[in-house]
Structure formats: C-alpha cells, structure tokens
C-alpha cells in the first residue's frame, strides 16, 4: 500500500468506511490477491499487458450483453411475432399486427372504442398521471429546496426528513398509505371528526387515481429536492450580495438570479421525473393492483399483465407495447441530452 500513501488521494473516504474496509482488507485482500494472481499472471504473460483490458471488461460485458443488450434486440423480434409461445423459434412472424392491434380505435379520444381497450386506457391513465405528477413533484420539490436553502437551523435534519420516504420500498410505501386510506383509517377518522362522511378512497376510481399521484409525489419528492438543492447551492452567494447592495428585493433576486441559474437543474429534474413517471409500476401494483377496474392501470402494468398474468400470454403484444414505451423514453432522453444535462443524471431512472 506504499504507493497509495505516497500520492495524495483525490478525496478521503469517511473514516468509518475506511476503517472497516481496512480491517477486513489487509488479511482477506492478501489471500484473494495471491489466489487470483495465480490465474491472472499466466493470462497476462500469454496475451500481454494492453490486452488485459479485455479480461477486465469481460465479466461486466458478458452479463450486460446477455441480460440487457440481447433482450433489447429480442424485444423487437417479439414485437413482430405472434402466438403464445415463449420460445422465439416457435413464434410465427406477423409483421405489424401487434402494433395494429394496439392502435386500432374507432375514436382515439374514447378508449373503450379501441380494439385493445386496456392498452388505450393505460395510455390515457399514464398521460394524465405523468402530467399531474410531474407538475406537482417539480413544484413541491422546488419550494422545499428553496426553503432548505435558507439560513435555517437543523438544515441537515430537515433535508433527511424529506428524503427518508425515497428510501422506502414501493411495497412498503403502498402499504403505509393503504392503511391510512382504508375505510376505518386515519384519514377517514380526521374527516369524520371534522364533520364529514367517510370516503371510500380505494374503491372509487377517481380517488384511487388521485392518491396514486399523491403517494408517488410523497415518495419521490425528496430525491428531486436534493438535486434542486445542489443546484441552488452552486449559485455563487456574491450574486445575491451584489443584488442586495444594489437594493434589489428578494423577489427580484429570485426572478433575476435564482430562476435563470437554476434552469439547467430544473430541466434535469423535469426530464428525470417524466422518465420515472412514465414507468410507474411497483407502488401502484402493491397499492391498487391497477384497479378499481382499470382506473389505475398504467403502461408498464399493461405490459406485465399482458405478458405474465393473463392466461393468454400475449408476449408479442406486450413487447409491442414495450416498444411504444421505449420510444417515449428515447424521446425524453434525447430531449434531456439536448438540454445539456449529463448522462449520469438520468442513471437508473
């Protein structure tokens, strides 16, 4: 480890992590090092130093190729084949039939006149959900980030409070809210104590849709707040000092300094939240299961249902719907790249 200490490290890891890594490190690392070197050194002798790169890249590339790249290509194949057989060799080529089925409607504004009315319904639901959820989450995240960016006591604590729900699993989030919203739940108790009547939040389509938006905002806003807060904190404080010396009001400073300089971050958040919202699935799956009826059936669940839960196993139709979804994602991603965010910002969205 001498070479390591001779050069300054770019950024010191936190002490706790460093200590634990070093404790386990020294003994285990030497054992692993010696054992694996027995294999690696002969390989290096055979292929040379520069080609060792292939050895390093291989495991990742292999898994990546088999489980991401290959499925991506296969997805197109599925989209153009029919039948209920999973294995590609047994699937007849059907051309654009699957897409035609998805998009055959007498009236495009009435989902129930469509041949595949569940797809049409899921598209409408997704569009409505994305619009309302994104608008709400961006607005609330911005307000929260602005509040957290002020000179306040216990900022770190508040920041963590808003972020905590982001870490909860979708199933847990769904159950927490199901418990609050049930017939005898907390919210109905509040409504009754204020003199109202109990509301069946989970069996009414409109209410279910409404709460899916709220829950989704609740569980994701902390993430966008953090990104916006980072954006706010990168705005140089001198700008505000200068503007206050010039006698500008807080509102003017917000309009003339904060908003323009925060715009790139806002764009990242906007596109990121759209990409996430389009793919809404797990939390709704556990919360309403797509119901009541098709009230909260969104695009990804339509794909999942069509492929895996119906006895029909319409893999081709599901893949065609996946292609439609992928199309939207590509459009939004290109938009994001055009707007100048870095690619890592959209990672694992």
């Amino acid at each position, binding site marked *: 480890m001498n070479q390591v200490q001779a050069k300054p490290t770019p950024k010191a890891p936190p002490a706790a992590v460093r200590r634990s890594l070093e404790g386990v490190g020294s003994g285990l690392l030497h054992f692993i090092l010696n054992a694996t070197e027995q294999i690696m050194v002969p390989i290096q002798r055979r292929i040379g130093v520069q080609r060792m790169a292939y050895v390093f890249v291989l495991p990742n590339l292999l898994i990546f190729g088999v489980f991401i790249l290959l499925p991506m290509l296969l997805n197109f194949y599925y989209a153009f084949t029919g039948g209920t057989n999973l294995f590609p060799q047994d699937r007849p080529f059907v051309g654009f039939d699957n897409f035609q089925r998805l998009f055959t409607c007498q009236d495009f504004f009435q989902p129930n006149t469509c041949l595949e009315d569940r797809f049409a319904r899921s598209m409408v639901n997704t569009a409505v959900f994305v619009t309302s959820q994104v608008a709400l989450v961006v607005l609330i995240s911005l307000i*929260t980030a602005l509040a957290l960016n002020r000179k306040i006591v216990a900022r770190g604590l508040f920041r963590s409070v808003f972020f905590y729900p982001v870490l909860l699993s979708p199933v847990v989030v769904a159950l927490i809210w199901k*418990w609050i919203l049930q017939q005898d739940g907390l919210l109905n108790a509040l409504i009754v104590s204020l003199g109202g009547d109990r509301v069946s939040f989970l069996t009414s389509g409109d209410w279910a849709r409404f709460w899916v938006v709220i829950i989704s905002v609740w569980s994701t806003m902390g993430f966008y707040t953090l990104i916006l807060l980072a954006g706010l904190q990168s705005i140089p404080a001198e700008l505000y000092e200068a503007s206050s010396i010039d006698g500008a009001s807080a509102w003017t400073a917000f309009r003339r300094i904060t908003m323009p300089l925060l715009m790139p971050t806002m764009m990242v958040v906007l596109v990121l939240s759209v990409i996430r919202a389009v793919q809404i699935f797990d939390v709704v799956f556990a919360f309403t299961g797509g119901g009541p009826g098709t009230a909260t059936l969104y695009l990804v669940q339509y794909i999942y249902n069509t492929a895996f839960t119906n006895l029909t196993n319409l893999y081709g139709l599901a893949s065609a719907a996946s292609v439609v979804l992928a199309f939207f994602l590509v459009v939004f991603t290109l938009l994001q790249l055009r707007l100048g965010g870095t*690619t890592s910002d959209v990672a694992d969205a």
Partner: protein
Amino acid sequence: MNFITRTRGRGRLDNSDILTYLYLLLGTVLMFGPVLWLVMSSFKEPAQLVRFPPTFLPYHQETVTVEGHDAPLPLFEVTLEDGSTRQLAQVRRVGIQAQMVDPANPEEIIKVNINQRTPVERVYFGLENYIEGVNRFPFWTYFRNSVIVTVAATALTLLINSMAAFALSKYRFRGRDAIFLLTLATLMVPLSVILVPVFLVITQVGWNNNLLGVIVPGAATPTGVFLLRQYMLTIPDELIESARIDGASEWRIYLQIILPLTRPALAVLAIFSIMWRWNDFLWPLIVLSRNELFTLQVGLNSFQGELQVQWNLILAMTVLTLLPITLVFGFLQRYITTGIATTGLK
C-alpha cells in the same frame, strides 16, 4: 432557545423565516407522520385496529379473572343509573345491552346499556403482532433471501463494475469507445422495457426460481461503470506506470492501487446497490414464483394480497421490512444525501 433567534444575525426572526419553519414543520409531519402511524399501529391488538376513530397510541383493555368464568373478562368503567361509576367485568353482550358482573361479587348480573360503559385501558406496546407475524409469515426465509440477494449482488456489482471501469479508464484497446458508448446508451434502458425477452433469457439460462436470476442480471449496472470510470480518470497514470516498472502484474495494480484509491466512489455505489436490491420488486416478481424463494418485498406483497387480509400482521411485517433500510439511512444519511446530490443518481 437562543440559537433560533440568531438565524439571520439580526436579533429576530422575520416573517419569511417563520413561514419557512412552518412549511418545514408541516413537511416533517407529512413525511414522517405516515411512517409513525404505521409503527404505532403495528403494536395494536386486532380489536384496537378496527376501532373507529382510531387512537394514536396502542391500548390494551384490562381484563380480570372472575370466579365461575374460565377466560379473563374485559373490564369496563360503568356509569350506573344513580350516577355513580363502578368497574365491572363484561360477561356477554346482547344487542345494546351488556351483562356485567362485579368482580368482587360474581353472582349478581348487572344489565347495562352499552353506551354507559367505557373500556378500562392502558397504553400497551405489544409485540404479539410481530411474534405471530414472524411465525405465520415465513419472515426469516424471505429475510434470508433478501439478504443473500442484496449482499451477493452488491459484491458482484462492485467487482465487475470496477474491473470494467478500470479497463475503460486506464487502457487503450480496440472497441473501448464502442463499449463505453454502448454503456452510456443503455444507461437509460429500464427493465420495464425488456420484460418479455428478459424472462426468456432467464428461462433459457435455467434461472427461473433461482436467486441467481435475481442477483446476476442486474449486476452489470451501466450507472456503476460510468460512476467508477469517471472517478478512476482522476487517478494519475504515473502511479500505474511506476507499479509496472516495479514488476506488479495488472491484476495486482487493479486490486492494490486502483481499488483502494476508488473507495469513495465504491462506497457510494455500494450504498446505492444495497438500496436498489433491498427494495427491488419487479425483477424478483418475474424471476421467482416459488414461495420459499421470495424476497421480502415480493413476499410482503403476496401476503397482503391474500383473501383474509390480517392487518395486524401486515403492519408488523411492513415495519420489519423497512427497518434495515431505515437503520442504514440513520447511520449513513449524510453520505447518502451528498452522494445523490453530487452524482444525481438514485
């Protein structure tokens, strides 16, 4: 409370400060309230859970053993017709009338309108839901599966992502740029887009109903490769050159020089990987269909979907499911939040 007034270096809070604190406090209630409500409810007995309006704290109704009755009887505070109150035990209830006895005098039955009695209760954090839940719901099996998946997948992710990142940042080789571009391009491909073919590949490999099918496919995260590569680019090449001159093998350089220097980025990736894998739902849902292989998330979801929903058990199991991630967050929260703010990934 001096420190509050110090905020703006002026002597007092102005209106916008008060508004800010009000907003943040309201936010705290809305963010933490639902979780707190879940935790409180998880300690309540089934009879208390169906009570309306619900109470915030969990209560337990006192019972008393009365001569001539085998089971302990619930205790009530009864307002009698003459206005006096007495503590009576309820034998049975018929419509709106309750038949009660005085524990001291078990012979005489007193008939009371049910509106004239209130249960005698005390605050009680019972662990019954947890104990019964762990027994009825194969919690430890699911927990073990989740731990295996999370630990194995995170270790595998760190290993193969860092190897690939090392190759992409420190070597010149044919196909390097192509591989890197491919990684960038697929940064955006979520599982939801490739559900069907992934299911086929898993089936072909024979990993249906095998934890490997959950662990391996997601390990080659483009995010991780990208994050680590960007970090490794900042490590000076001279370090590697001088190690080569000293006779170190490439593998030794990777393990003994590159990995230790990449620790901050590895730690960020490790935390994210743990979060992704612990909370992962869609992938295990597709790969696993045998109950004994379920992860906690899939198990919990199937448990709540059963016909007879037993909320007391579900609530306790939900708390147990969110506990590990909450602890991780409690210890590493500053690290997680700054990690996200600087890398923009989740």
